[in-house]
C-alpha cells in the first residue's frame, strides 16, 4: 500500500514506560474506507498505540502519519478529521444529550448553524431523538454508549477510533451500535475498532491486527487469520453412549486434536483438514453407532485469538 493512500501510517513505533516496552516497533497502514480491527489481550499495547496516534502520549521512536501528514500534538487540522469514541463514557454529567453532543461538536465546528445540522444528524444517527433533553444520569447503559458515540462522530470525522464501544450494553443496543458503524463505513468513514468481542470484529472489520506484548503478532482479513492457524472445525455429534475403543479410533484420526463424550454428545476439535466431518462420521458408521444431530462449526476468530495469544490469564501481576 502506498503511503500517500493510507489514512493511518505507522512505522517502527516504540513506546516505553521505563523498562516496560508497551509498543515494540509496530508498523501498520490503514487504507481509506477500511474498518480496521485492533485486537489483543489486556496490556497488549492497543490503547497505548491509539493514544500515540492521537498524540495523547509521546513516544520514544517511530513515525505516525495521518492522511499523509505527520501527526503532532498541535496538528489541529488533522485532529479536526478524527473522531474518538473512548472506552469509558466521557460526557458532561450536567449537560443534556443535545448539549453534550453540541459541546463536543463545537470543539471542531465553529459555525452554529452548521453545528445544529450536525448535532441533529448525530442524534438521529444513534437514535436518541426522544432523549435530547435528558441528562446522562437518566440514561441507561446502552443509551449512554450511544451518546458517547454521538459525541465522537457529530463533527463528521473521516477517521473514527472506537475503543470497545459496546462494553456492557444489551444485545439490542449492541446491534444498533454495530449497524451504525456499518452505516458510517458505508458513507466512507475509516474506522479503527478495538474490542474483546470477536464476533463483532469478525462482522465489522475488513482487516484485523492482533497485538501482544506491544507487537503485531498477526494481521489480515478474518479468513486469512483463520488460515494462519492449524485449528479446523469443531464437530459435535449426538451419539448417546459410546465405547472407549470407538472414541480412541476417533482420536486417532489424522486431523483430530481432541475428542470427548459429554452428556451424550461427541465433541471433536479438529485441525484444519478437508474431510474432518466425513472422517468422524465414517468411524461411527464403521462401528455401528447410530447418531442424531450433527453440527460442524468452522474455526472462529476467538479460536484464532486464543491460539495466537495463548490461553494463560492476563491482567495478573
Amino acid at each position: 500500500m502506498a503511503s500517500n493512500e493510507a489514512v493511518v501510517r505507522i512505522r517502527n513505533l516504540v513506546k516505553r514506560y521505563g523498562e516496560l516496552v508497551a509498543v515494540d516497533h509496530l508498523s501498520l497502514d490503514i487504507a481509506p474506507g477500511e474498518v480496521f480491527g485492533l485486537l489483543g489481550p489486556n496490556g497488549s499495547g492497543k490503547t497505548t498505540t491509539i493514544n500515540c496516534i492521537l498524540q495523547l502520549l509521546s513516544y520514544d521512536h517511530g513515525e505516525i502519519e495521518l492522511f499523509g501528514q505527520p501527526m503532532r500534538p498541535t496538528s489541529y487540522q488533522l485532529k479536526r478529521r478524527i473522531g474518538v469514541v473512548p472506552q469509558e463514557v466521557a460526557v458532561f454529567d450536567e449537560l443534556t444529550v443535545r448539549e453534550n453532543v453540541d459541546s463536543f461538536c463545537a470543539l471542531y465546528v465553529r459555525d452554529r448553524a452548521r453545528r445544529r445540522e450536525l448535532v441533529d444528524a448525530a442524534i438521529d444517527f444513534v437514535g436518541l431523538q426522544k432523549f435530547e433533553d435528558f441528562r446522562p444520569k437518566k440514561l441507561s447503559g446502552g443509551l449512554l454508549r450511544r451518546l458517547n458515540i454521538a459525541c465522537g462522530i457529530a463533527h463528521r470525522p473521516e477517521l473514527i477510533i472506537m475503543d470497545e464501544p459496546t462494553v456492557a450494553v444489551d444485545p439490542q443496543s449492541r446491534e444498533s451500535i454495530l449497524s451504525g458503524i456499518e452505516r458510517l463505513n458505508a458513507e466512507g468513514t475509516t474506522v479503527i475498532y478495538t474490542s474483546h468481542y470477536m464476533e463483532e470484529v469478525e462482522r465489522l472489520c475488513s482487516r484485523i491486527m492482533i497485538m501482544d506484548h506491544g507487537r503485531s503478532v498477526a494481521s489480515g482479513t478474518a479468513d486469512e487469520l483463520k488460515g494462519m492457524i492449524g485449528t479446523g472445525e469443531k464437530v459435535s455429534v449426538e451419539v448417546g453412549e459410546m465405547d472407549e475403543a470407538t472414541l480412541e479410533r476417533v482420536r486417532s484420526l489424522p486431523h483430530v486434536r481432541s475428542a470427548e463424550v459429554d452428556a451424550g454428545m461427541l465433541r471433536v476439535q479438529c485441525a484444519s483438514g478437508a474431510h474432518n466431518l466425513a472422517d468422524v462420521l465414517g468411524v461411527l458408521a464403521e462401528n455401528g453407532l447410530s447418531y442424531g444431530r450433527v453440527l460442524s462449526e468452522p474455526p472462529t476468530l476467538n479460536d484464532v485469538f486464543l491460539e495466537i495469544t495463548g490461553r494463560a490469564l492476563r491482567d495478573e501481576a
Partner: protein
Amino acid sequence: MLASLRASVLSLARDKALLVWTLAFPIIMTLIFMGMFSGIQDAYTTVGSTLGVVRDKNYSAAMGLDETIQAISDPTSSDHICNVTYYESAADAEAAANATEVDAYLTVDAEGAPQLHVTNASLSENGTLPTSVLAEILDTYQHTRAAAEKVAATRPELLATGEAIGAFTESAVQTVRLTATKNPPSPDARYYYALLAMAAGMGATAAMVSVRRLLPTAGPLGARQALAAVPRWRMLVGALLGAWLCEFACLLVAALFMWGVAGVSFGNDASGVVVALAASSLMACAAGTLCGTVTRMETSMISGITCLLSLFTGLYGTASQQLADTIETSVPALAHANPLWQTTNSFYALLYYDTPDAFLESVAALLIMTLVFLALASFRLRRTSYDHL
C-alpha cells in the same frame, strides 16, 4: 474557547454542590447572622441613659438647670441623651438607682451646684458610658453658670442684651456626633465581609472542577477534550472564564442579598463593590485552577483551606477577630498574604476609608495573587502534559 466557556457555565450552573457552597451557603449564613447579630446591634446602638432628678427647692433655685435637663431629655430633640424620672427626695432616687431603674440621679446642694450620684449596681449593669455623658453635660452646665454669674457680677448691663444670653444658652449644652470613618461603624459588617470572602474561597472549586475536566491526566472526559481541534490554552481560558462568571454571579447575588435583606452596608461606592467581588472571584478561580492541576487534590481540600484561611479574617467570632487583628498588627505580611483577608479588607476599605488607596491596594494584591496562581498553574500544566496518562 467559547465552546469550553459555554460548557463550563452550563455545567457549573447545574452543579448542586457548587451552587450550595458559592450561593446557598452565604445566603443561609447571612440569615443565621441576622438572627445572631440583632442583639449585638442593639447593644451598640443603646447609648442613651436614664437619669433620676431630685426635684426639691434647691433644684428649682438652680439657674438654668431645669431648662438644661429638659433640653437633653426631650425625645423629639436631636440633643436627646437621656430619659428623666423625677423624685421628691434623694432617698427615693437612691433606691431607684440601686434597683437600676435609673443609671444615676441628680441632686442640687444648697449652693445650687448639681451633683451626680452613681451606684455600683448601675455601673456594673450599664458601664460607665451613660453616666460619663451625663457628667460631661453637668460639667458644661456648671462652667456656663459660673460664667453667667461672673458677668452678672461684673458687667450686669451685658445680661440685658439678648446677645449675651444667646451666647450662654448656645454653649450650655452641645452634643456633637463625631465620626472617624467615612460611614458609621457597623459591628457586624466584619462578619459579613469575611463570609463573602469565605464564599469566594469556596468558589475556587468551580475553577478546579472546570479545569480538571480538561486535563487528559484526570479522566476520560479530559482525554477526549484534549483531542479537540483547538489549542489547549484556549480551552483552559474558556473554562476559567466560565468558572469566574459563575462564581462572580453567585457572589454578586449573595452580596445583594446581604445588602437588601440583612441591611449590610458596603459604603456608597457600588462600582467598587462590584470590582472587589470580581477581583476576589478571579483570584479564587486562579487558585482553583492551580489546585485543579494537582490531580490527587480533592475538592474537600479547598473547603478545608478556605475554612482555615477564614479563621484569620475574623469570621468565627471575637476570638478569631482578635487573632486576625494580632497577626495584622504583629506580622502584617502574613495577614496580607491571605487572599481571603485581602477580600475582606477590600470591602472594609470601601466602607470606612475616605480615599480609595486601601481599596486599590487590596484589589491590586488580589490581582497579583491571581497572576501568581495562574503562572504556577500554567507551569504545572506544561509539566503534566500528554505523557502523564
